């Protein structure tokens, strides 16, 4: 029975592996073989119990980069293949849609312009388009947030 997992479990990422550790809290209550109550320190151990679906990793991935419909005109169905949803295109053609909103698609246009300029050896133009690329990425982020700023009114303010 796992408990207080946010405080008792830890992880490390090493290459393509995730190493999981569990904290075992020390105690002074159990005497050793000679009857001495020696303090035992907290220690990290490997998982001491089996937990079904116990490990959950939330991550970003390159999922469905190309699809058969415009992603901004339909709502994605969680079940693949259901009518109304879109289906991943594994062999994309010129008619395939990029699975991104319009702002990120425009950012990709700038990215490709930068790559074309780089192939020509025009690094100045490449930097120009990469700057536009990052600007559109940040625009896409800020479009999702609204910040309200209020200021206090001075007591004797004249209007």
């Amino acid at each position, binding site marked *: 029975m796992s408990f207080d997992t946010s405080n008792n479990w830890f992880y490390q990422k090493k290459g393509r592996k995730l190493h999981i550790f569990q904290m075992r809290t020390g105690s002074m209550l159990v005497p050793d073989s000679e009857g001495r109550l020696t303090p035992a320190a907290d220690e990290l151990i490997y*998982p001491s119990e089996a937990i079904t679906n116990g490990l959950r990793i*939330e991550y970003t991935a390159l999922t469905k980069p190309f699809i058969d419909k415009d992603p901004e005109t339909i709502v994605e169905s969680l079940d693949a293949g259901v009518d109304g949803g879109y289906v991943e295109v594994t062999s994309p053609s010129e008619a395939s849609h990029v699975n991104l909103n319009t702002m990120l698609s425009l950012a990709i246009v700038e990215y*490709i312009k930068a790559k074309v300029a780089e192939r020509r050896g025009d690094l100045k133009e490449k930097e120009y388009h990469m700057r536009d690329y990052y600007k559109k990425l940040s625009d896409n982020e800020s479009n999702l947030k609204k910040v309200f700023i209020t200021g206090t009114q001075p007591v004797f303010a004249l209007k």
Partner: protein
Amino acid sequence: MTILEIMERANTRDTNLVIAWIKDAIHQIQSTQQDSVVINKQNITKAADGDDNQYSLPAGLISINSVSILDTQDDNKYKIIRRLGFEPVVSEDTNP
């Protein structure tokens, strides 16, 4: 936006190269933003030997948002765990 529309805007005709660049760009976007978040769950096994604390990262992973462990004593909630900031002492005691 279709691949053709992107090619027309970027004034290029090499379809395969553009598809490869689009994948590169999406990969870079996913490294810094959370446009497509995926969940992976794995069974935790009771450790019996030296590498039983190792779990494979999911295929296609670009960046980790969080790692959680199921708390079975608290209504089966997944609780985010912390990354270990130091290298733990390893004791390979086969008869503890």
